[in-house]
């Protein structure tokens, strides 16, 4: 469903991505792995059009995304949940969801506030609360929920477990698994291997902006040497 080929990206003059390629099949979860600064977030931003790719192709169901503005890419079905969450702190939970709301998409069960609150019951009790007064875990849930309101067909989920307590990470993994079970395709980025192993089908390992390994997640989990080479700190 998503195919990235030879993606290059720059921040100003700094050349960050050097020809990243990956492919994600419908209904799959693909996990980007790599140490800090490997280029995971930049890959997502380049796909989303937030950092315009300087070369390469990004194809969603064979439709070219590279070169389009972020809002157009979002409307084509990509839902982006940034690493920093970037919830609208001055808005309430309900208002944050309203910002993300888009018209229903053909062939998908549309997301509503009620369906969101069923997925994240913790949010249901704080609809009118200002987002600035939420815990990190709640903010992460809200960030995902807000993006789901856009009825995406593919979710870009950047390090959802970052900075969360173990219990909350587990709850997050359950939620992601549930989304996957409902047929959503997900491009995940993770440093938490346990989390990744629990939900991902495929793994792509990045280092210095290049792909160093591509294969099933299970295989990576079996291969301690590979993990030591690219992932241990």
């Amino acid at each position, binding site marked *: 469903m998503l195919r990235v080929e030879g993606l290059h990206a720059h921040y*100003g003059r700094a050349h960050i991505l050097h020809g990243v390629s990956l492919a994600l099949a419908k209904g799959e979860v693909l996990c980007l792995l790599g140490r800090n600064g490997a280029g995971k977030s930049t890959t997502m931003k380049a796909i*989303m059009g*937030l950092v315009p790719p300087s070369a390469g192709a990004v194809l969603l169901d064979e439709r070219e995304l590279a070169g389009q*503005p*972020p*809002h157009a890419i*979002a*409307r084509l079905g990509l839902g*982006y949940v*940034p690493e920093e969450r*970037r919830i*609208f*702190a*001055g*808005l309430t939970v309900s*208002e*944050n969801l*309203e*910002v*993300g709301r*888009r018209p229903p998409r053909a062939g998908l069960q549309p997301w509503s506030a009620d369906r969101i609150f069923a997925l994240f019951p913790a949010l249901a009790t704080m609809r009118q609360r200002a987002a600035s007064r939420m815990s990190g875990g709640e903010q992460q849930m809200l960030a995902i929920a*807000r*993006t789901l309101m*856009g009825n995406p067909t593919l979710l870009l989920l950047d390090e959802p477990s970052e900075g969360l307590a173990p219990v909350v990470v587990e709850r997050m993994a359950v939620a992601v698994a549930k989304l996957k079970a409902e047929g959503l395709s997900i491009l995940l980025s993770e440093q938490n291997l346990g989390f990744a192993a629990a939900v991902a089908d495929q793994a792509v390992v990045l280092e210095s902006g290049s792909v160093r390994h591509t294969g099933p997640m299970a295989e990576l989990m079996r291969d301690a040497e590979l993990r030591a080479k690219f992932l241990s700190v």
Partner: protein
Amino acid sequence: MSRCGAGVRSRADPALDTLVIQALNGLASASSLFLVASGLTVIFGVSRIVNFAHGSFYMLGAYLAWTLVSHGPLAGLGGFWGFWGGILLAALAIGLIGALAEMTILRRIYRAPELFQLLATFALVLVVQDLVLLFWGPDDKFGPRAPLLRGAVEILGLRFPRYELFLIAIGPVMLGLLWLLFHRTRFGILLRAATQDREMVAALGVDQRLLFTGVFFLGSALAGLGGALQLPREAVTIHMDMAIIVQVFVVVVVGGLGSLPGAFLAALLISELHAFGILAFPRITLVLVFLVMAVVLVLRPHGLLGREPEGAPPASEAGQPLPGPAPRWLRGLGWAALALLLALPPFLGEYPLILLADFAALVLFAASLHFIMGPGGMASFGHAAYFGAGAYAAALLARHLAAPMEAGLIAAPFFAGLVGLAFGWFCVRLSGVYSAMLTLAFAQIAWSLAFQWIEVTGGDNGILGVWPSEWARGRLAFWYLSLALCGLGVWLLRRAIHAPFGMALRAQRDSPLRAEAIGIDAFRIRWLAFALAAAAAGVAGSLFAYGKGSVFPSSLDIPRSVDALLMVLLGGVQTLSGPVLGAIAYAGLQEQLARLTDLWRLVLGLVILALVLFFPSGLAGALQRRRGA
């Protein structure tokens, strides 16, 4: 700020009833002010553009309403619909004009540095000024009274106009409506979200262009409404734009940029201050208002209810290395020009010599502003204060002490430098728009003093008889004097940029934290640079005064500050030759245009717009790029 409210006042006996009426007058002014300020603050919140043209939209609203109410097809309706229909239609039309300006011009410069955006909106101011003159002529226009709101009611035995009561109600009602818009509609919620993080809003599938156009429609319509509602209150004049924009800037900055309740509060504060200031200190009302602004900004750098902007600031120019030594061809050109400037003048007539001397003063003025903007990374909207300080230092010495020119030329940089030290101490603590606004406030204080302290400064009549000494009275001698002093000033400023002081100045601009870490006292460096620039501007101002033989408050008013900004921005902030080229290009263009056409503002505005859109790095930058390519 000369809006005297209605009602009966007795200055001798500020009894309770007078105080109440005066408070009501203040409330009515506050409402009008809030209408316009709310539009500006809403636009700024989303687009981060400080829209100078907002005052022009206000003025256009008033003119358009005047036409609609008294001459348009609606006027035929007469009475209630003729009047109120005209007011509303004018507001809507101004909203559309604002949206159009956004779509055609401002949309292209959201990523440009703040000051360029300002330049573009100021170009709009110029264009609108001439268009208004073209369509409506220079005469003041008087609107009809508002149907249903004619006459007065009696309050505590004093008569108070009905229309003012209506205005008092309009402010809170509009605040309420805007609150509903921002909290109860999808458009409003999106606007609030975009105020915080517009990139994220885009990533969620919202087309920002619609939001931006929408917010310009809303904000401009509010300005238009504010202008249209003045119709029954005061004459419609071609000076409304500048008068209101300064007040509105004060309100918006004191309230906190982007904050609606803040704007409301500040409008109340400023208007009441003004209303009661007239009773207590009739002579220094203007100073009072700007003083309050300065105090608020020093105590609360982001305004009463403003918040420090969160998240990533809008992309600004990355720190640029100091341009290397000027390329050989440019240096050659410079020497050739200097040779011409020395050799040619004896063969020139009186008028070209006067012009040349003016240009020299302007070049130094521009170079002094460039010194704090380029290497210093600070912005000043009020640089005319120091130009004027120099001019007035010379003039006051001449008038009160009959001092000769030599004394004036020596005193000017010291006096202007001292003023710079005093004002700079406040201004350099802040950054970005707030700092720029504070410089504007101080410049307005200086202007108010020159304007209102009639015994000393002569007020609007200025000071005449500021002539050069005998030996420099000839135009040729005065030109060589100007060339020498301005050349020296520019050369000294350049030396300072290359000296360790200049390096420290650039270091604190590029990376304040790192600069502090290596022991640079950023505050001191900025402060000194500010004072130095002020002193240089003072020299320019005094030369200008001796060249003209007189000084008027206009030597430190806003248009003059804007002149300096335009010269620097036209030349390009990050080149050393920029201010020189910019000053000559701008002053020359203005001079030529004024001679060729009555519509010089229109043409100049269009030229500036074209430059901003096509040469965002200024003239010198464009030249260098061509050579580099």
